[in-house]
């Protein structure tokens, strides 16, 4: 688990470098990636469906990104990208591709479908977080208006 935390932190920060994020945001990028991956890993280790795990992790990534984006006044994409990368179903797509090459279409299509659903789960996680963010903003605005 410890090795997982360290490697996911470094991998996410390294992705920040690949996407040229500002130097002073690299640490936060690493944190977002590490927390998202830690949640995913924990859930999968406890035998929870990987689609649910990806959804939860993407949600957490998006929530933390929103917090960082507000706190440091930077575009949210910076944190989103580095957090999402570890969740991308690279391994599954690879397995699917391998079975396609071996003409084992039954398994290949199954794996590809699963990879596709994982990608959908990432998108859904981001969307949920955005929904909650908008609800909070609207709620705060209304509270402010009531007070005035």
């Amino acid at each position, binding site marked *: 688990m410890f*090795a*997982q935390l360290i*490697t*996911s932190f*470094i*991998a996410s920060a*390294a*992705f920040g*470098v*690949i*996407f*040229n*994020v*500002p*130097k002073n*945001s690299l640490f936060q990028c690493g944190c977002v990636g590490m927390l998202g*991956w830690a949640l995913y890993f924990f859930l999968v280790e406890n035998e929870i469906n990987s689609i649910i795990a990806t959804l939860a992790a993407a949600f957490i990534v998006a929530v933390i990104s929103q917090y960082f984006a507000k706190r440091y*006044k*930077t*575009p*949210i*994409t*910076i944190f*989103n*990208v*580095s957090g*999402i*990368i*570890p969740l*991308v179903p*690279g*391994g599954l*797509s*690879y*397995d699917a*591709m*391998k079975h*396609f*090459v071996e003409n084992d279409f039954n398994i290949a299509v199954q794996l590809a479908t699963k990879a596709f659903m994982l*990608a959908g789960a*990432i*998108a859904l996680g*981001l*969307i949920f977080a*955005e929904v909650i963010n908008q609800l909070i903003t609207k709620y705060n605005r209304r509270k402010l208006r009531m007070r005035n």
Partner: protein
Amino acid sequence: MNDQLHYNEIIDVCLLAGKIMLQNGGETSRVEDTMVRIAAAFGCEDSHSFSTPTGIIFSLDGMHPASKLIRVSQRSTDLHKVTLVNSISRSISSKEMTPQEAFSRLKQIEKAGMGYPLWVQVFAAFIASGCFLIMFQGQWSDFIWSCIAGGLGFSCLLYLHWLLEVRFFAEFIASLVVGLVAMLFVQIGVGSNLDTIIIGAVMPLVPGLLITNAVRDLIAGHLVSSLSKGADAGLTALAIGTGISVAFVLL
């Protein structure tokens, strides 16, 4: 006449800001939002911006209606520039900058080089490959081999992007290189698990920014750009997969 000049200046500032953001990986929703905000801060409340991944149309209403179109053909990923433009837009909104100042600052940003030197980026890809290998349950003995394969693949990607303007070809060749190098390591007996080495080494090629932007644009209701970015990401993923499978077929 003087007024007209002033409005032209505002349009130029907005378009330049939008262009820099779009070229360097900002979402279209952010681009449109930023342009309208800048115009509003300079006193043009009625402005419209329409941007797609390949171009921006911007127009001002009111006393001096005017519109301009800008074509964006070359795109790269430099989120540092997006952040800089974002902060300039913030200081314009709080009325700390004149159009002339903003324009010269934006020009500087446009001309500036990439945020990190090339070797740092390749090194980042090198390290990231190894870390992904561990994250995907690989063995530590394969760490360095995954690093080398990933670093080589990513250097290939950068070189081919610089050399040719053919989309998807660079990703295809880069993943082919990753596959071949990983197989070489396994064949000569230094690497043990081919699958995890390849998965780790391929990760730096994943179009992460495209995926994120496609989703974010979809949430914001920018259907044209979200679908085209999604297609772009899908085709890039397909190119990577094809490269790997060609490597399998070759050996």
